[in-house]
């Protein structure tokens, strides 16, 4: 029962995070006059559609103008444009929650739609593929290397890993991506420089899959390199701290084989804090994904951010900020579940 309660509690506090970001964005949008502009654009868009359909039935121009200005009044009242922005807060939050942000100014989805929700939803899977595969590989390799390094403190390998993590922490994802493009795509010519498919894209499903994989190598590799260093170092430090505890000495004194001590007494105990540091690295991974996608022209939500900044498309930017927070909150919640499973203390409470 307490396991369930812990999860509900964590879920609730993550929901508060989501709401905070929502309210923060809405307040900033309102206070800077952006929401007014956004809604006015929506209203005039609707009126334009109305004018077109009405002009076929109503011939008298005065009559047409009267009907349209009536409709405008209604719309302004409906969207709350006649009130100051803070009265519209709840409504605005709801609109963002449902990604109902009207139409993008210049950006289009791949299928040609200009609705913000279509554009964003279409990109979501591409980002998920990139982030999840990079995080999966990173956590596995980092775990392995970190544990291995912790057993050989002071060795040359340990020092090499420390220096590598320093470099990895200092490397900006986008710059590394550029270097990789110059090196692998232009100098060695063995990997594609950008995009998700070759031009023209293969039509056969299997060939499509491999083509996508082929294009994903460089971006995923970039993400791994920039996030693996600090992560392996964190694993090392935690394993090291626990291996100095008394109960580990006891286990060794009992004559247990070293790898059993490592597996059962050290890594098992270090698992919850290791998950915690994975959680802490999550925001970094998302940020890295935004930049990596931008550099590699990977058509995900991160690249969309860059395109939206260039095109000054504010409704897309609002939607993306919300989507990235949502993505973070969901990923975070999955890790929380993992944490609860790994930490027996919560179960026995």
């Amino acid at each position: 029962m307490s396991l369930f309660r812990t999860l509900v509690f964590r879920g609730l506090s993550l929901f508060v995070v989501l709401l905070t970001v929502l309210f923060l964005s809405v307040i900033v949008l309102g206070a800077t006059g952006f929401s007014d502009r956004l809604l006015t654009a929506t209203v005039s868009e609707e009126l334009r559609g109305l004018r077109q359909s009405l002009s076929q039935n109503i011939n008298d121009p005065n009559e047409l103008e009267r009907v349209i200005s009536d409709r405008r009044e209604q719309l302004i009242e409906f969207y709350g444009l006649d009130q100051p922005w803070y009265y519209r807060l709840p409504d605005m939050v709801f609109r963002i929650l449902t990604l109902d942000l009207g139409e993008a100014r210049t950006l289009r989805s791949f299928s040609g739609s200009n609705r913000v929700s279509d554009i964003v939803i279409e990109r979501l899977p591409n980002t998920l593929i990139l982030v999840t595969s990079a995080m999966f590989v990173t956590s596995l390799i980092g775990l392995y290397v970190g544990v291995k390094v912790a057993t050989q403190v002071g060795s040359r390998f340990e020092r090499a890993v420390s220096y590598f993590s320093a470099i990895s922490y200092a490397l900006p994802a986008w710059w590394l991506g550029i270097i990789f493009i110059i090196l692998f795509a232009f100098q060695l010519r063995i990997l594609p420089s950008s995009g998700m498919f070759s031009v023209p894209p293969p039509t056969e499903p299997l060939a499509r899959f491999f083509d996508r994989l082929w294009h994903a190598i460089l971006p995923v590799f970039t993400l791994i390199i920039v996030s693996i260093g600090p992560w392996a170092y964190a694993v090392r430090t935690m394993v090291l701290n626990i291996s100095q505890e008394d109960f580990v000495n006891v286990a060794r004194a009992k004559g247990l084989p070293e790898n059993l001590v490592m597996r059962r007494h050290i890594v098992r105990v270090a698992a919850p804090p290791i998950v915690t540091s994975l959680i802490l690295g999550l925001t970094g991974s998302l940020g890295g994904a935004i930049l990596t996608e931008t550099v590699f022209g990977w058509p995900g939500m991160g690249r969309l951010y860059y395109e939206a900044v260039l095109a000054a498309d504010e409704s897309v930017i609002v939607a993306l900020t919300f989507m990235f927070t949502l993505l973070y909150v969901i990923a975070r919640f999955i890790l929380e579940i993992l944490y609860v499973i790994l930490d027996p203390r919560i179960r026995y409470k």
Partner: protein
Amino acid sequence: MSSSKDNLNEFFSSTSGKAGSALLLIFLIISTFVVFTYPLDFGITVWNNPAYWSDYPKSAPPSWTTLFNDDEFEHQIIEFTSPSDVVKIPNQEERIYTQKLILDKNSFPTFISLSMNDITYHDLPPIVTLSIVRPDNDEVFVYREIISPPRVGEDAPFTRYSESPFRVNLSGDKSVASNLLIFLQERTQQQISINQIVGSSEKVIFAKFNSNSIESYEPLLGEYTLVIKFVVADERDSISNVKFVLGGSTYGFLGTDSLGRDISVGLLFGFPVALLIGIITSTLTTMIGTTLGIISGYVGGKTDTVIQRFSDTLSNIPLLPILIFLIFIIGPQLWLVMVILVLFGWPGLTIIVRSMVLQLNTSQSIEAAKSLGASKWRIMYRHIFPQLAPFIFAQLVFFTPAAILAEASLSFLGLGDPSIPTWGQILENGFRTGGVYIGYWWWILPPGLLIVITAMIFVFIALALEPVVNPKLKNM
């Protein structure tokens, strides 16, 4: 407790401590130099002012790249401040500026331009002419311009081009092309139209006329003489400065970008900016984080709950998306970036400091201070803070590159502050211009490398601090 001298020794005994401190010193010296020599509004008046860079070659690689290639034309700026000769004619005066030009590389300049600054006249407007005497003793008449006449109601002396210089790109000028066409027709029998000359005047002036099309002309090597004449009607008339530029295909130590901006100049300005962003942001972040962490841990109760809920929420907000959002909506200003980084940066430290304070609370030294009747604030300030200080200092160092990298990332996404050029912005310009695909490596690699090195300096120092900080934490 080890003395601070021991700590210092331990710090400098590690390779990373030595390397980090040495590099930091170099960076600080460069930053000081920049702060004292660059104008404060460098971003607006120099870097983002295209007029300032008009005399520089565009997208030119560094000059050392062609050290072993003799055919690259070297960029030359010929500047006159006083005439080489003055000839008096009745009612007039001819001021002549001459300079020998040696063409010894088997290539043409990439462009030629003439600019003049701050002209004052009292009577009739001065006339400027430019001609070049070739090694074969032909004189090519290139350009003639009459300085704009007095406006209605304007009184002598008349001042022209005092704020921004008068500049003419001789390579692309139509009147230059028609002058050159006349020269070509006298000299050769070639059928060449004026449109072929526009944009490549320099290929006519310095040519050998060895073929029938301008594209395949080869340069005539030898000694040329540049002759610029000002005919003035009053001897009080003055011209403060005349500049003739032969565009090269390489430039300086780090080349130029597509607007002709000297990349090394921009990168130098980035040194103090990067250090300031990093140090100010991390100092403020650690100050707030530590203060709230100590209060939260020591005071406890409702204060603790409020601070912890607050920092839990803030630390869970993904930084880059919120940064992009806020900067995009409010506007790209550097101070705002720093404020946001501080606002969302402190909670992480607060959570750690609080847990450390909770451990310290039960220690005997704190209990002793309490029993002596020390006030809450005194205990926090005099007894808890000093014990945490080394750890907090390490955190400060460790957080510095995070701020620098965050600003660089934001600039890379096109949200840099246009009034303050940073390394991230220079790199972004290169990326957006397609420098990666065209191969402008001198525009892409150096700024990124500088960001990495700066971040590494602080990571190295933090690494060297770890053994100094950690044993004390274990002894607690």
